[in-house]
């Protein structure tokens, strides 16, 4: 999941949780506040009543009656005063029902006993619970609306801000990481940001890529120099042996040994040449200005190699579109590419096996050439490494210097040809070469 989606999800989720918590706790909260406030106002009324009683005297209210009672018109509130004959000593606030003029209503009632002139009196002040709670609902609703509005507003701010905040990260990813192909030759400018972490990440990436490039350059230079420097001593040895083998005084045994030495030297020569070729391709020392039909290239390769087909009685078929022409290529390199692939298809094939070369056109992928063989195949563990230098899948056979597919890979990369391999041990291997649109034309 992307960081931005995660942040949006988290922010929205946390706000929703707050809203939910608020909605659940709001009734209790409001009830609590209202009942606290009611208790407080009942106590204040109690104080006022007792003050008035002390000021005006109790008889001002009782007027000879046994008790005094007063209530508002809608019976929302009442006050009752009576002598406390039972000497109760109560001081409490409770919810209870009272019968007021034939109506039984639920009140929140303050019951308080007090002394006046050595006599005990009982005071009751009541408020209907419905009048107490009448503002609860609207209050809750308004609180909820205000909260939701605020949350929505803060959510909007948060989202906009996170978007702006993490924007440089997206830029770093798109400019430094996505679709970057090794070697990283095109330098993209540093991403502008005031966030230190992103700046650091961006600079580190640029630095790392530079270091990789530098290491790669050094390796390339080394390969080129080393293989080049090897050529002269190899040259001397080869020519010495060529002269030596013609010496008539040599015994047959000595000559045989020289022949063996020449074979070994030739192996060394092939390895050096292959490495040199790879480094020359990587150094882009080959002009890409030729044009050739794939069918011609493949047929040339087959002609060059057909003596090897006979040995294993292999059949080869090349069904390629004769109208396709590859332009902007290096013909020698492409010849080498097809040669190495077909050579491998022969080398790793079985008796009476076959090699099939075909092509496809698709709107999506363009032009592709498919080479499949009925050879021994490559195991899934080996498959990712077949293009690596000096890797050999089957060491039990004499399979050459192990650079053939590395050369194929270099040539493919140099021409932007995408190379895919599929293989099944015991069944065969299929190479698919997909050519970029700029490289091929189809004539009518």
């Amino acid at each position, binding site marked *: 999941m992307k960081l931005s989606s995660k942040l949006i999800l988290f922010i929205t989720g946390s706000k929703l949780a707050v809203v939910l918590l608020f909605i659940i706790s709001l009734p209790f909260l409001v009830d609590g506040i209202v009942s606290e406030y009611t208790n407080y106002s009942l106590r204040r009324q109690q104080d006022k009543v007792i003050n008035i009683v002390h000021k005006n005297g109790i008889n001002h209210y009782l007027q000879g009656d046994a008790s005094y009672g007063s209530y508002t018109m809608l019976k929302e509130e009442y006050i009752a005063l009576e002598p406390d004959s039972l000497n109760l000593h109560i001081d409490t606030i409770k919810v209870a029902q009272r019968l007021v003029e034939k109506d039984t209503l639920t009140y929140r009632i303050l019951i308080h006993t007090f002394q006046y002139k050595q006599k005990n009196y009982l005071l009751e002040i009541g408020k209907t619970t419905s009048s107490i709670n009448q503002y609860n609902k609207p209050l809750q609703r308004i609180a909820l609306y205000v909260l939701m509005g605020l949350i929505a507003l803060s959510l909007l701010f948060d989202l906009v801000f996170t978007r702006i905040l993490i924007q440089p990260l997206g830029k770093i990813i798109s400019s430094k990481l996505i679709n970057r192909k090794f070697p990283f030759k095109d330098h993209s400018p540093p991403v502008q940001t005031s966030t230190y972490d992103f700046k650091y990440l961006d600079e580190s990436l640029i630095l790392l890529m530079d270091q990789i490039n530098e290491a790669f350059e050094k390796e390339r230079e080394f390969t080129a120099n080393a293989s080049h420097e090897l050529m*002269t001593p190899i*040259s001397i040895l080869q020519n010495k042996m*060529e002269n030596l083998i013609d010496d008539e005084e040599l015994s047959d045994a000595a000559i045989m040994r020289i*022949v063996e030495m020449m074979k070994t030297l*030739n192996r060394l020569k092939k390895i050096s040449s292959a490495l040199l070729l790879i480094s020359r391709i990587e150094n882009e020392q080959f002009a890409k200005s030729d044009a050739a039909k794939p069918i011609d290239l493949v047929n040339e390769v087959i002609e*060059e190699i057909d*003596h*090897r087909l006979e040995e294993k009685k292999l059949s080869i078929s090349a069904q390629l579109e004769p109208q396709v022409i590859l332009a902007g290529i290096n013909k020698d390199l492409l010849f080498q590419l097809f040669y190495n692939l077909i050579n491998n298809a022969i080398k790793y094939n079985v008796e009476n096996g076959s090699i099939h070369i075909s092509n496809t056109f698709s709107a999506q992928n363009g032009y592709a050439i498919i080479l499949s063989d009925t050879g021994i195949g490559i195991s899934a563990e080996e498959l990712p490494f077949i293009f690596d230098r000096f890797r050999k899948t089957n060491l039990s056979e004499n399979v050459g210097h192990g650079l053939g597919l590395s050369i194929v890979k270099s040539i493919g990369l140099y021409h932007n040809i995408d190379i895919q391999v599929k293989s099944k041990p015991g069944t065969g291997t299929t190479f698919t070469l997909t050519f970029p649109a700029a490289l091929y034309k189809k004539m009518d």
Partner: protein
Amino acid sequence: MKVLIVEDEKTLAYEMEDFLKKAFYICDLAHNIKDGLDKIEANSYDFILLDLGLPDGDGLTLLPKAKKHNPDAAYIILTARGNLEDRIAGLDLGADDYLPKPFSLLELQSRMQAIARRKFNVKEELLALGTFNLDLQKRLIFFQENQIELSRKEFDLLSYLFLHANRVLTRMQLSEHIWGTFADDDYDSNYIDAHIKNIRKKLNAWAPTDFLETVRGVGYRIKK
């Protein structure tokens, strides 16, 4: 024919000299540009074999000056640089051929002979190979008036052996000549044997081919 070898690797130069002398060339050696120019100014050569990486400069710079004094010589560039640009520059400056190091001395000689045929207009009559006759220019082989059909590779093989007559050529040397850099790494393969067998079969239909010898464990030789 007279050859000047401009090569700073002395051991290599001596080996080339050794080989070419056996093939009846007269050789001079130069190990740097200055020495090379002195010799070119003083003598007239048929072949100038030129290394590019010389201690006192790029061998290519010698080429135009040398051409002034020896315009008719054939120039062959020998280099371990193997750069395509070198090859193009060399051929642009009028070099006749280009051999990347390491090269086989057999290949060098065969290139020299090819240039000689082309450049010096050597009137080559048919060359005798046993009772057969070879036309190297037209790449044909005859028995009396009858032309014998050989494949391209078969003729390459036979003419290479012929050019290096009395010398044993290994299967590896032969396959390198025919397939060049694409020669198989599997030297014990019998492709060369198969071709030789075909050549013998085709020629034996007309006359014996005792001149084409098999040297056991090594390769083949044409005896003259």
